[in-house]
């Protein structure tokens, strides 16, 4: 079983992204769980949510305290006092939305693998001013290797039928192809 923590700011869609990741893993006949942590935060405040992925049924129903990986929808949460290194397992993976390179982020000591890209920029160019979900899911797919690109594209189509879904599928593929992956 692998456990994940998503970081972002209120309104960036981390809960939906975690649900879509879970839907993809379940589609591939494995087990997954997205446990949200809702607070009274306003838009823009730092928020987090959790997920688990496993080949077997998952008994645990608590939050995640020692993640095997973190997904950061906005690296700016660091400036808001969030410690991204909290509880990390020694073999942790990072997927981050940032214009910085893995080295520039100064996090290569804490992760064995890092995938990063400017998801805001890609999303803005392809879809407009919307949450960077689809691009991040593409980047997660490539970096974390937990589900296939075709599966997550189908999940996006189910969550967002019609033209909006197809735009988001394009964004997801662009995230997959654009992510810069660094490995120790």
């Amino acid at each position: 079983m692998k456990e994940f923590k998503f970081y972002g700011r209120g309104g960036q869609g981390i809960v939906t992204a975690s649900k879509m990741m879970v839907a993809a893993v379940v589609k591939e006949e494995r087990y997954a769980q997205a446990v949200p942590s809702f607070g009274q935060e306003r838009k823009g405040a730092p928020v987090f949510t959790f997920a688990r992925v496993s080949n077997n049924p998952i008994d645990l129903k608590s939050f995640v305290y020692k993640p095997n990986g973190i997904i950061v929808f906005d690296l700016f949460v660091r400036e808001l006092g969030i410690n991204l290194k909290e509880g990390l397992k020694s073999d942790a993976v990072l997927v981050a939305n940032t214009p910085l390179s893995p080295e520039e982020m100064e996090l290569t000591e804490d992760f064995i693998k890092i995938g990063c890209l400017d998801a805001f920029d890609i999303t803005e160019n392809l879809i407009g001013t919307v949450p960077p979900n689809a691009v991040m899911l593409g980047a997660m797919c490539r970096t974390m290797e937990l589900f296939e690109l075709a599966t997550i594209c189908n999940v996006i189509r189910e969550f967002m039928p019609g033209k909006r879904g197809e735009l988001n599928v394009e964004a997801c593929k662009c995230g997959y192809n654009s992510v810069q992956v660094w490995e120790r």
Partner: protein
Amino acid sequence: MAKRKAMDGNAAAAEGARLARVQVVAAYPITPQTPIVEKLASFIDEQKLAARYINVESEHSALCATIGASLAGTRAFTATASAGLALMHEITGVAAGCRLPIVMPIVNRALPSPWSLWCDHSDSMGERDQGWLQIYTENAQEALDFIIFSYRLAEDERVLLPVNVCLDGFFLSHTSEAVIVPSQEEVDNFLPPYEPKNLVLDPLDPMAVNVLTSPAIFTEIKHQHKVAMDNSLQVFKEVSQQFQENFGRQYGLFETYACNDAEIIIVSMGTMSGTVRHLVKKMRKEGQKVGALKLTMFRPFPGRELAEILGKAQGVAVIDRSAGLGSLGPLANEVRSSLYDTANSNQGPVVCNYVAGLGGRDVTEDTIALIIKETVQAVEGNLKKSYESRWIDLLEEAESI
């Protein structure tokens, strides 16, 4: 064919209601229950469910309308949480006393004050003596299954009582996981169309319902209710057998894990039961004789069946997700009471009560590990036995906050 898909507890409960072909939904939104009734409203709008949706102005009215719909001979549904349930309280007794087979999920959320949006069982515990059956679910699969299961149980002639299916707010209601969704045909084979077997309103043959009842027969009417409550334990077992044959999933009044030779057994309800089982599995691998008992049916309380399992342990740790102010937690009171005869023979287990997870506090593996450690100490006599609950996840600075 059944389909496997990811959904959260609220979506699963709504899906259960759709598959049960409920005919009337009367509900008022309240966090964290709202997505259930939103989903049902969409099903009706998209013609995926042939039902009437009644918009109401409060939870009090929601249950009144649901009672009316049930009395008119339809399979009726509503759902609520926390303060909404408290507002219904006057009417919950009417639904039960009129012997109406309504199914109403409670998405557990702490009752104020202090104000909270988050999970504990204080809301449903406030209804525990109102004469409804109460079922607590651990995951989204159980949430879906028990909506269907509960209509069959409620509508049995020997029962004819309303059922609360309880889902932990957020930890279940908003947690996505894999669920096997049965086909409509499979559900239809298990749950036949609703046929009223008791009171039915007929404009051509008017009658009064819930009338002033004199002391001459009040006790007898209540006793009929008590008999139905008692019957429901046996009917639950029969429905469970049928459910297992039709769907391949088995549900008991409670579920045990590694209890046979366990020295310490942890008793819990709802989502924390999964975390308890996870830890028990780990500790068993290390050779520690611990077991887990997840209670599904809280009302009626299956005390006799429970005592048979728990009576053999040396220590029983009961975790309550409600404060039980002025006494032990409500679950611990029931468990201690059911073990009284065993305890009198001087061989009964030490029963320790832990209050945890109030107002949405996460019940972690660490919390449960501490509960087991303290229970072992109590069994060994190193911890003073006392008739009080231990607030196990309390912060050290509790008195200065």
